[in-house]
């Protein structure tokens, strides 16, 4: 079980390494989208400081959405997805390996770049640390929930747009509490509640999302 998990993880990472442009595209998308807001809203730092955490979180959310359709789509069309089922190992474990790899190459870079964009919005250093922290907790949840949508729409026409419709409602709590934590901290409020919600959604989505994804994949393969 563990060796199968590792071989899936290694394969995904090697593939991402061969296709660096995909990773770079997502990252540039994040940078550009987040930089559009100061241009549109105006350069006033007090305004930017308030909208900053929200903008960065929405940017991270859109990046996650942008990268999602790649999680399973190419594996579905070239037959690799069948191999996951034919391995006889629990599909949900292999699914976690794929999502972990996906998060490492699309989610983690965004988390690392986020403080740079936070500086553009004039966020103080404590907020930047908190921003990285909430993104570290929240972006894996986005990848896990998003993969449910990606698996449900495998091989469906208009899959990418459909995935967004299916998944965005489920992103809302993560967005509210992720960005909310940073804003609350900026206002000198307690953030225990926000962090608890993020941790709870991480635990619950790690436990349940792979099951939903595994059954969605089996349905798509039939």
């Amino acid at each position, binding site marked *: 079980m563990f060796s199968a998990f590792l071989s899936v993880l290694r394969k995904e990472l090697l593939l991402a390494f061969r296709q660096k442009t995909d990773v770079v595209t997502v990252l540039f998308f994040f940078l550009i989208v987040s930089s559009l807001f100061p241009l549109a809203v105006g350069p006033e730092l007090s305004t930017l400081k308030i909208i900053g955490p929200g903008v960065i979180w929405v940017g991270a959310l859109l990046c996650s959405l942008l990268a999602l359709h790649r999680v399973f789509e190419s594996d579905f069309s070239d037959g690799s997805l069948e191999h996951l089922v034919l391995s006889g190992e629990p599909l949900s474990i292999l699914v976690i390996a794929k999502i972990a790899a996906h998060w490492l190459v699309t989610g983690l870079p965004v988390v690392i770049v986020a403080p740079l964009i936070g500086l553009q919005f004039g966020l103080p250093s404590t907020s930047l640390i908190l921003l990285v922290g909430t993104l570290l907790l929240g972006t894996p949840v986005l990848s896990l929930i998003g993969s449910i949508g990606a698996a449900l729409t495998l091989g*469906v026409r208009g899959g990418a747009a459909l995935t967004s419709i299916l998944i965005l409602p489920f992103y809302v709590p993560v967005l509210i509490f992720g960005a909310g934590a940073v804003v609350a901290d900026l206002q000198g409020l307690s953030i225990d509640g926000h962090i608890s919600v993020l941790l709870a959604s991480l635990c619950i989505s790690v436990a349940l999302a792979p099951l939903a994804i595994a059954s969605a994949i089996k349905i798509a393969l039939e």
Partner: protein
Amino acid sequence: MNFWQYSSPQYFYPLAKKMAIIFFVLACILTVWGLYIGFFVAPTDFQQGESYRIIFIHVPAAWMSMIIYLVMSFWAAIGLIMNTRLSSMLAQALAPTGALMTFIALWTGAFWGRPTWGAWWVWDARLTSELILLFLYIGYMALRASIEDPRRADRASAILALVGVVNVPIIYFSVKWWNTLHQGASVSFTKSPSMATSMLTGMLVMALAFWMYSIAVSLVRVRRIIRDREANAGWLNESRGAS
């Protein structure tokens, strides 16, 4: 009579027609009765005046929006686990009515909020989670519509519906869990209703009317779905003359 035979579309199809007619008639009677109580019998409210009367539409619609989602997920799950066609069709038939109820609840809520709270819309937990419910219904219907193979559509949308079930308790309990602008529940299982009797009667009659309407319209819809999906099964052409 074998009760289980009605789990097959073939036997359910004619039964659904008879039931739909009965439920439609009941819905009409109850609506007239409920609206009569609501607008002529129930007194003016001591704090909200006449504007509270929107409660006779708003509360039943909001209840139905959540109940229909639960029922829809239940049938979808049965369809997924037991592989029974009719239950998936029922889930499919319920979704548009659920979306309509959610929409009505949001819309009448806005019209109620403006005169009482002083705002069409606020981003509090009850309102936001009800809005998400509308999006869930839309997502469910969009997923169904874009998958050609009905069997796959049944099962994929069932998974989506089940994932969305977490939202229903959040909506219902949001007014208890958080300090929301939206008031708490007037009717609950644990305490006696905090409403005047005639107001409560009006609301419950309207809720019953909404139930009847939802059942009737879903039955009509399920008949259309059966017609579409079982078009090549011989029994449909035979029974068409009869029903």
